[in-house]
């Protein structure tokens, strides 16, 4: 417990106060939380002494249970026990037909999105994931003795915009401040790279429970540059299990399984898979009618069952190398992530393809959480800036629907993020004041083969003759890989309104109403929380502007300086009070007054950064 802030002599504790941050690996099968303490990143254990928490949530009429206790009920109360919820994140109901056969709980349609019918009513995947996140954050808070300032949550690199947004919504619902969504393979590389000081081009092969990612990164002098990323967001260790289950069904002659039987078969399949990493053959027993079926599975049989799946991952490896413009020989190291990489056939095939023995020195189940903790520690401000730099990419191309259901790519896959690209559109009718755009994500040429992300309606275009209005639409992808869109009519400068309708996501209003309705917030006063948020933001603005003035007041005229200082004084005053709207207004006023200042400082720091680089020397 941090009762006392101990400061070095002559140094105040406040500005360098150690902030609490955690990295969360929100996995399909298991989730973990890790943090950096005394310079070392470690996973944290819960009250039961476990660091791996099954990503399982059970809804009973009395309450919600997360983790091991929920998993224990998975067979008896299959309908209310949600496993592998990650597979449902950001999915439409119609997209989950294949999953319906595999999951023992009831999937329902919630305004086009998939949700689950439980003993506590209909729950969507965002709400289920929020329960897992809240449990992990709680473990971290208890261990660290305080509320977390921020978290980094990892997502598969191959997650599309809807899946990322759903993850961020879940964190919001759990009351967490997300510093960054970090790609799982990038997190793993961070854990290994900083550990070993490795330089050169590495591959991260990440086979989790429900997703497969392959990323190629260049590591040099603290810069982690993702060159290309690929994979399959619907292929994972779970598919190995289902392949084994089908085989067991053939053996026992049970074509149709009840929910309960399905769980038994899955448990047996998982055990067989795990035991066959060490042994050549394993016996099993399954209940059949009123007796027991005794059988055995050999490693060779297992390999035959999963071989097509492993081949699929190798094909993705080949593709990603092509995208990076590299050959397998140029890869110096291969990092293995995810429990499924323990399967000998996987290691063997990966080693053969990259012609190098894969790295497994950090536990493949923990490496992602550890990397996330390292990055969380940097982002929360506990480490000197500029030590490391992560340059990540967008995994899937973003495009717009054009005539005839074709896709025009706006931002191709593997473009470094953040990125902004503008596209111009014109009206085709006299006096046209609105326009509809459809944004999709994927590599195929037809809209129907890509994932629909959102439909936008531009309204308020000034009426002009056909072709007269030029609307510039800017697509921006931030460092979390999330898309935002703005539009402007060029000749008049009129900002067109954008109505966003995410195809497979929640609108801001839906998230807000879920927040209000959620258990976490019933206890807290919502107003109080909003006030606190604005106060924190006010502190950030005051801190940032004061620092800027200290360094660069010379860039301002004395009149400008006076105005800014007045605004700061006003902001300081309202920040003490409890008028949320007044604080917000004072922040906006300060921001407005300092916009130019910020731009001037930006230009100056570009010149500074490149100082010593003279045009003539090139």
């Amino acid at each position, binding site marked *: 417990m941090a009762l006392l802030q101990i400061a070095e002599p002559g140094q105040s504790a406040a500005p360098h106060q150690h902030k609490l941050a955690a990295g969360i690996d929100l996995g399909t099968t298991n989730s973990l939380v890790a943090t950096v303490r005394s310079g070392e990143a470690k996973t944290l254990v819960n009250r039961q002494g476990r660091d791996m928490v099954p990503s399982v949530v059970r809804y009973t009429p009395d309450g919600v249970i997360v983790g091991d206790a929920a998993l224990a009920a998975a067979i008896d109360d299959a309908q209310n026990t949600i496993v592998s919820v990650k597979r449902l994140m950001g999915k439409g109901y119609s997209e989950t037909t294949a999953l319906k056969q595999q999951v023992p709980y009831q999937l329902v349609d919630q305004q086009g999105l998939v949700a689950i019918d439980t003993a506590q009513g209909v729950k969507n995947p965002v709400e289920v994931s929020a329960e897992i996140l809240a449990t992990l954050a709680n473990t971290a808070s208890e261990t660290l003795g305080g509320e977390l300032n921020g978290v980094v949550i990892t997502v598969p690199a191959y997650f599309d915009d809807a899946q990322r947004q759903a993850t961020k919504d879940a964190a919001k619902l759990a009351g967490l401040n997300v510093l960054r969504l970090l790609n799982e393979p990038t997190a793993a590389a961070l854990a290994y790279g900083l550990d070993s000081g490795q330089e050169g081009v590495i591959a991260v092969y990440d086979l989790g429970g429900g997703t497969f990612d392959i990323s190629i990164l260049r590591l040099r002098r603290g810069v982690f540059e993702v060159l290309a990323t690929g994979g399959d967001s619907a292929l994972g260790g779970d598919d190995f299990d289902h392949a084994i289950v089908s085989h067991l069904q053939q053996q026992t002659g049970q074509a149709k399984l009840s929910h309960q039987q399905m769980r038994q078969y899955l448990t047996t399949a998982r055990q067989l898979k795990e035991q066959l990493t060490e042994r050549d053959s394993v016996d099993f027993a399954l209940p059949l009618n009123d007796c027991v079926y005794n059988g055995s599975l050999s490693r060779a049989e297992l390999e035959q069952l999963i071989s097509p799946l492993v081949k699929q991952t190798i094909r993705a490896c080949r593709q990603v190398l092509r995208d990076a413009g590299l050959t397998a020989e140029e890869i110096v190291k291969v990092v293995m992530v995810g429990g499924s990489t323990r399967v000998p056939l996987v290691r063997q095939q990966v080693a053969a393809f990259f012609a190098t023995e894969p790295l497994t020195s950090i536990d493949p189940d923990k490496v992602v959480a550890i990397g996330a903790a390292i990055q969380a520690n940097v982002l929360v401000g506990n480490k000197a800036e500029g030590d490391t730099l*992560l340059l990540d990419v967008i995994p899937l191309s973003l495009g717009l629907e054009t005539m005839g259901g074709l896709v025009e790519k706006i931002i191709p896959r593997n473009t470094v993020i953040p990125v902004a690209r503008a596209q111009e559109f014109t009206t085709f009718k006299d006096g046209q004041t609105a326009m509809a755009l459809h944004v999709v994500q994927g590599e195929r040429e037809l809209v129907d083969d890509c994932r629909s992300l959102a439909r936008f309606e531009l309204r308020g275009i000034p009426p002009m003759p056909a072709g007269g209005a030029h609307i510039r639409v800017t697509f921006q992808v931030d460092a979390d890989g999330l898309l935002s869109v703005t539009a402007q009519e060029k000749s008049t400068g009129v900002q067109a309104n954008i109505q966003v309708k995410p195809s497979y996501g929640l609108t801001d209003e839906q998230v807000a109403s879920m927040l209000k309705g959620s258990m976490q917030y019933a206890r807290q006063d919502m107003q109080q929380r909003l006030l606190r948020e604005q106060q924190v933001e006010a502190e*950030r603005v005051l801190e940032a502007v004061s620092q800027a003035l200290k360094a660069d007041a010379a860039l301002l005229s004395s009149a400008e300086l006076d105005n800014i200082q007045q605004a700061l004084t006003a902001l300081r005053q309202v920040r003490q009070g409890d008028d949320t709207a007044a604080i917000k207004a004072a922040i906006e006023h300060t921001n407005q007054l300092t916009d130019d200042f910020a731009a001037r400082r930006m230009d100056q720091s570009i010149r500074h950064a490149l100082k010593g680089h003279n045009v003539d020397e090139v």
Partner: protein
Amino acid sequence: MNYFQLFNLPAQFDLDLTELGSRYLKLQKQFHPDQHSSGSERDKLLAVQQTANINDAYHSLKQPLLRAEHLLALRGLKISNEQRSFTDPMFLMQQMELREQLAEIALSDDPDSMIDSIERQLQQQKKQLLKQLASALDAQTAEQDQLAADLIRKLKFFFKLQQELELIEQQLQD
């Protein structure tokens, strides 16, 4: 926006890519949103926008065709997004022949050597055109700029063919 200015590099076609890369990383270290994650909302947004600019500038300067286009745009000659048809019959003829060769690869007994031979032709043509482009851009006259624009349009055809060739090669491998 002048991308050369952003990197404090001379606005010319001939560019030291290693130097460009190291300046890019310096700017990234300064402006990347990760360096500003505890800043105010406005500062975070500025960091995203600025980094997006830096990324875009780097992307454009790194590739010879985009760099040439940017250079011409700075001189007032915009050719990106233009809709224009080609009228050089000799050039179009050559393109058609190359396209026919691409179509024949799948039917050939020895597709690999055919791919190699087309690859060589494309590389040779590209190299030649890029050389002409460099000297046209260096001249800095309106007339030579027009020539450069034409060369860029031609080069685009070759880059497109190159992509298609790679696609065919991939399909054969798979």
